[in-house]
């Protein structure tokens, strides 16, 4: 199965939401008894070559490289039809061993633990591995040299200089010896409020920028017999958390979110968080109904395609995911979250956009530099453009898809990006760093939105969870500047 080539922007790595239907999501399978205490200190022979201008990573040009791609929403064509041929063209003597799987952890984790890993791994899907734990266990290669290397096809720039702001930071972790990048977060997601452009035009509803306008419009929509705002409480509360986080950042700048990431005492009870939670909580009380708590993302998204729901907080993968359900009367468009207060520190056009979909090179591979070289190929402008064409998802390679009209939703997202200018912020990382905190936030946001909008309770609950995480020595910590 799964020769599904219809794609969606893969939210699963960055977004960490539960698997969509998550049929007993495959547990990752762990280690060998034989491996206990072993495995990770073995030095395996690494293939290396001589560094040169043409070979900045110093790969052994004859050594084979093994890659494993997640076979899911993005399909695998971008790897088989674009990246691999480009790599082969550059290094004809190096064989690319390719495999794709839906169950990353099941297939890869044992190989990591027994020290026989592939060189480059796409860690994604319902069965993805906890990347923080991989970094902590020393299984992921430091990518500093990759980002410092010259770009594959943009002359005069390093790889890092060709990427959108924040792209590298998202894959950066605290390890002994400082903060280092360990992952390429390849896809680039724009977050906002999605709506049906045609429905809005038909009713001459205009896109609100202030909270007062937003409320007024919601009242109109409600009067028209449509649910003004909805998200899926059963498995996609994550989207709502992100909406609140985005609003909080607009009220008090991204620093508010950095404090959360750094587990700063009092960060969750800060005024900006509370104001954002309060505003959204009222939307929950007035413009949603309880049944959404029990629905899944596919179900709510379908209702939006049927014009039963007007606004839906989501990321730019949405259009692809719903490709099968879009009718001729439906055209996706996206708007920034309206300003909650009149004294917001960031303008109404400010948006949250972040990189996702982890690709990493394994220290346990036999040709780690080769794995990095494959990543360098992926990060070329040409490969990025083809990726966007195939998957309708943007990449972190800045401007790679400029001037392409791929789909209405993507176009709308691109417009939103250009209007935001410098006011694009990466958001937050506590949800990927601290899984327990992430899970607690899903529960807390559901309570806020479906049980009367008690913002104080939301803040206090999360503050307590954050402090518990801070105190728990078994959880490795990361920091953000």
């Amino acid at each position: 199965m799964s020769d599904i080539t219809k794609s969606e922007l893969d939210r699963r790595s960055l977004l960490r939401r539960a698997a969509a239907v998550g049929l007993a999501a495959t547990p990752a399978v762990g280690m060998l008894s034989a491996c206990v205490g072993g495995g990770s200190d073995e030095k395996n022979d690494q293939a290396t070559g001589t560094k040169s201008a043409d070979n900045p990573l110093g790969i052994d040009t004859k050594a084979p490289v093994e890659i494993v791609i997640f076979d899911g929403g993005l399909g695998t064509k971008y790897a088989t039809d674009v990246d691999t041929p480009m790599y082969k063209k550059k290094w004809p003597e190096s064989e690319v061993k390719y495999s794709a799987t839906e169950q990353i952890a099941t297939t890869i984790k044992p190989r990591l633990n027994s020290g026989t890993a592939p060189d480059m791994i796409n860690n994604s899907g319902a069965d993805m591995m906890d990347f923080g734990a991989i970094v902590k266990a020393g299984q992921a290669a430091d990518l500093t040299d990759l980002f410092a290397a010259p770009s594959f096809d943009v002359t005069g720039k390093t790889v890092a200089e060709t990427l959108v702001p924040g792209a590298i930071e998202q894959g950066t972790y605290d390890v002994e010896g400082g903060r280092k990048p360990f992952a390429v977060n390849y896809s680039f997601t724009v977050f906002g409020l999605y709506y049906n452009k045609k429905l809005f035009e038909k009713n001459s509803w205009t896109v609100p920028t202030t909270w007062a306008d937003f409320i007024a419009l919601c009242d109109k929509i409600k009067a028209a017999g449509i649910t003004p705002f909805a998200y899926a409480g059963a498995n996609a509360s994550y989207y709502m958390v992100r909406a609140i986080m985005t609003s909080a950042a607009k009220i008090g700048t991204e620093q508010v979110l950095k404090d959360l990431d750094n587990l700063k005492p009092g960060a969750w009870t800060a005024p900006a968080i509370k104001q954002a939670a309060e505003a959204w909580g009222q939307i929950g009380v007035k413009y949603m109904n309880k049944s959404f708590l029990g629905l899944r993302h596919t179900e709510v998204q379908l209702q939006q395609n049927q014009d039963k729901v007007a606004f839906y907080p989501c990321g730019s993968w949405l259009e692809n995911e719903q490709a099968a359900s879009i009718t001729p009367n439906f055209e996706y468009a996206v708007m920034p979250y309206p300003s909650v207060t009149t004294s917001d520190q960031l303008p109404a056009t400010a948006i949250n956009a972040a990189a996702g979909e982890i690709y990493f090179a394994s220290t346990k591979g036999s040709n780690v530099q080769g794995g990095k070289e494959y990543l360098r190929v992926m990060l070329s402008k040409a490969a990025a453009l083809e990726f966007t064409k195939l998957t309708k998802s943007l990449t972190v390679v800045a401007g790679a898809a400029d001037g392409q009209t791929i789909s209405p939703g993507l176009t709308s997202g691109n417009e939103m990006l250009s209007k935001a200018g410098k006011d694009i912020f990466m958001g937050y990382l506590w949800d990927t760093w601290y899984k327990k905190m992430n899970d607690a936030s899903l529960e807390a946001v559901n309570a806020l939105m479906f049980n009367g909008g008690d913002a104080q309770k939301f803040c206090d609950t999360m503050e307590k969870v954050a402090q518990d995480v801070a105190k728990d020595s078994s959880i490795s910590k990361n920091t953000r500047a």
Partner: protein
Amino acid sequence: MTNLTKTPRAATTEPVVPAKDTGRRVNPLGGVAHAALFLWALATVAPLIWVALASFKSNEEIFLDEPFGLPQSWAIDNFADAWSEAHIGQYFLNSVFVVVVSTAGTMLLGSMAAYVLARYKFPGNRFIYYLFVSGLAFPTFMALAPLFGIAQAMNLLDSFFGLIVIYIAYSLSFTVFFLVAFFKTLPHEIEEAATVDGAGHVRRFFQVMLPMAKSGLVSIAIFNIVGQWNQYLLPVVIMQSEDKYVLTQGIANISVSAGYQAEWGQLFAALTLSILPMIIVYAVFQRQIQAGLTSGAVK
């Protein structure tokens, strides 16, 4: 102190032939009993019928129309997609093969162990018995990580043989526990008579005990078939290449991708496809179960 006092019909009992008689008593309970049975039957089949109907519908119809409304246009392509993408047939056969072999193995090994534990005194008997019983309490997915290692070390990964052996190992707990209790209740006279006739231990087991224990063996066989048929975690650990997947893994895969892709009709079609063969197999299988359960001892 009520012990298992089931007395299996002695081998000499004639098979019971129901007399054809049309004189039914009218019973006041009948109405209530029928109502209860009928309601439960309805509750059992309703979700399944609903799934079957939904498998012909589009997403829109599934979510926005009457649940038992007929599809507007019978979307057969849901099935085509599910079939071509899901290899349901292949997975189904894999499952059947694994379950048949491993249930047979479980029954043989389990009854051998249980017989010895139930009817022979020897040092270590209790210990081995409790060791088996303790497995009942072991939550299977705590076994996953260690099991993977053990299987890899023994070169059993991704092989039907490996999966069968592991199914047997994980079914032994309950089988031994159940059969020990059952064997203890069987009378000793026939066995002793066989000993007098000069039959050895092994022959006594196969020719005297097993036939006597038929009803218990059938019950536990059903337990094992059902349990192994529905097993999901163990094959996930062992079976990694898709052509070797068992049905539960196949369904899980479809379900996950249907969730990403929001192709509900296809998911329901796949569910229907995987349910159908079971209905057919079960209809055949049912007669044998009934026969096995009611046949008593074989002469």
